[in-house]
């Protein structure tokens, strides 16, 4: 089973097309293994990006160095998954 301990989902608000292009570049960096839940499309639509724990530092440095604003949407993905699993078990019982 794949676990997502410490993974975060960042909500990213790109200011302009240039920042959107940068986000696409970020998404293409295979070594970071990031997963766009909502893709960067236009400045009107925020993007949501799941970042594995080992890539958090690199991704946040990338965003900050390019002045791309973001907030943390989900602090720990696994925590939510555990909660979901618990709810399902409870409901089944």
């Amino acid at each position, binding site marked *: *089973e*794949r676990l*997502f301990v410490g993974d975060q*989902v960042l*909500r990213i608000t790109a200011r302009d097309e240039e920042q959107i292009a940068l986000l696409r570049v970020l998404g293409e960096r*295979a070594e970071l293994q990031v*997963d*766009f*839940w*909502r*893709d960067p*499309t*236009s400045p009107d*639509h*925020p993007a*949501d990006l*799941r970042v594995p724990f080992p890539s958090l530092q690199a991704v946040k440095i990338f965003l900050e160095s390019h002045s791309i604003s973001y907030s943390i*949407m*989900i602090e720990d*993905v696994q925590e*939510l*998954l555990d*909660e*979901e699993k618990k*709810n*399902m078990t409870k*409901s*089944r019982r």
Partner: protein
Amino acid sequence: TERSISTFDFASYHTIEEIYDWMDVLVDDHPNLISKIEIGQSYENRSLYVLKFSTGGSNRPAIWLDTGIHSREWITQATGVWTANKIAEEYGQDPSVTAILDSMDIFFEIIANPDGFVFTHSSNRLWRKTRSVNAGSDCIGVDPNRNWNAGFGGSGSSNDPCSDLYRGPYAHSEREVKAVVDFIQGHGNVKSVISIHSYSQMLLFPYGYKRGPAAHHQELNELAKKAVRDLAAMYGTKYSYGSIANTIYLADGTTVDWAYDNGVKYSFTFELRDTGRYGFLLPSTQIIPTATETWLALLDIMVHVLENPY
């Protein structure tokens, strides 16, 4: 084990076995309205089931609904279960549902990507694609919403099997997609295709593979506008609407573009709740509110299809 609709918890997420068992119960409870059709098998040989809601007639005009083509979007399968039950309950009660089913059939595929769905329960909750093996790659799966023969192979899809947007080796390479294509083309009288995704609160229509407007853009836009307004009336959930290309981005090979290009005028795709607090991990407490508000928009579209034959 007692099998009963009354003990099924619509406010919880369920496994494929539970949902498939529930379908049988629903069919048993409404033998004159609902039947279960197997339209094919998935890559891992799971049945692709469609619930057929019909009050009779032969090859009546039909509405196609599907949920869960991206397996991790659990709110959609759960909404599918609730909605199918709602259709069954409301026939003979609600005048709109009754009128629709008195002259049209509804086909509902609740788990459009069963292999992916099982994988989300057993191995990777955040799996999106099918589970087919890609020759020459260690990476598994194809994005079934980039695999349709509508602008296949271009923008917004990937030729990298490791990508979540991998389009597959050729259009309709995925059994899960081909089964629906064969079914809709074989039927020949499908008037509406509504494909349900999550999240980001949008109601979209063709095109995704090009920026130019669809021939029926104005009508689709007006209908979408009404549907999202009615949806919002329940809990204030705000949806945006428009063509896929202009509302989100250029995306090739999508379900609704294929449907539209194959003569299904009323082709829509939903992106259900949420506002971005939970993403694909929407708490189960939100299933019924999500399904309830979505129902209002779905009904708008279905009634419009009924009242505007073509």
